[in-house]
């Protein structure tokens, strides 16, 4: 079972992930087109008007726009979400044990973080996951749009970390836990492009490439339909 999980199933998961991400990216490119050049952008208009306002007014404007950001409106959610996604990427990629497997298979390694750091990050990640779970269960506005599918996706995301923690500390039967850990990781990776976890691709594409009020920068593309 271990060989199956580490061999063909691992390949299958990564092929689904890579193919899926490429498919989603191409799909997003096809659904958008290059934006027409605009002579007046919100930035250029702001520059033109900047002389009209006093520094007090400018400070106030900055404060108002900050209060409208995610950090200004939901500081706790913004912090936990950022930490959650940071751990989600950093722990699996820079974990020593994963790099060891990478070296055994392909003969190269990435930078590794100390095991103790990854251990702490995993526990922090799991706390964040519990926060999301409790939020989904008790906050009325989140309850209203939560379905069993949302809980399943949270489980799919947290399972590799929970089983990884168990495997690292060798709690329960190590071999069984390790196989479950590998399978859980593969399920998560394969689920990314075709489930709600696809927001990984959608977020970067839409917030960066498509110009809108909330995009980072001006954006170079716009929706076709």
């Amino acid at each position, binding site marked *: 079972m271990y060989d199956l999980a580490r061999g063909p199933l691992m390949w299958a998961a990564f092929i689904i992930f890579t193919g899926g991400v490429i498919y989603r990216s191409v799909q997003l490119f096809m659904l958008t087109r290059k934006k027409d050049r605009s002579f007046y952008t919100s930035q250029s208009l702001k520059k033109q008007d900047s002389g009209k306002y006093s520094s007090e007014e400018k400070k106030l404007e900055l404060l108002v726009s900050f209060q409208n950001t995610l950090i200004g409106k939901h500081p706790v959610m913004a912090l936990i979400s950022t930490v959650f996604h940071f751990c989600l990427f950093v722990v699996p990629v820079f974990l020593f044990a994963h790099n060891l497997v990478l070296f055994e298979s392909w003969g190269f390694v990435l930078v590794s973080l100390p095991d103790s750091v990854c251990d702490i990050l995993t526990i922090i990640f799991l706390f964040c996951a519990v926060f999301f779970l409790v939020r989904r269960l008790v906050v009325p506005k989140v309850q209203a749009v939560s379905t069993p599918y949302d809980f399943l996706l949270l489980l799919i995301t947290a399972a590799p970390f929970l089983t990884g923690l168990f495997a690292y500390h060798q709690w329960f039967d190590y071999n069984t836990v390790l196989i479950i850990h590998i399978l859980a990781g593969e399920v998560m990776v394969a689920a990314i492009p075709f489930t*709600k976890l*696809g927001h990984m691709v*959608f*977020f970067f594409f*839409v917030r960066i490439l498509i110009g809108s009020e909330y995009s980072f920068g001006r954006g170079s593309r716009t929706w076709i339909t």
Partner: protein
Amino acid sequence: MKTVDTKKIKDMLKMKKARMKLSLSACASCSICAESCFLFMSKDKDPQYMPSYKVVNSLGKLYKKRGKVDRLFLEKMRDLIWKNCVLCERCYCPFGIDIPGMIAFARSICRSQGISGVYPHTLGAPEEEYSKNETG
């Protein structure tokens, strides 16, 4: 009661299927959009005014049911996308989902079946009169 032209609805849904389904599937139901809606804030944070709730329960359901809906469904949907939303386009989604675009599309589908919203409150009618005064 007028019947619903489900073929027309299906055709309309098909026209924007790729973009709309992608946007619906990107919604992580995080509810961060809630506070950006002034109606949500002014109606005691009633989840029915939350942007994601309005989209999922209108356009989302239309796609889920593949356009096979009856008039009652569309009339219920009308309240959600007209009475609970003024399309001010101030909703904020951390993933950049175009929520107003989706609600506007749901409205177009309703209009294609002769269902549209009116705003009697803007004419001075009291709130409890809204539903009575609305015409199909």
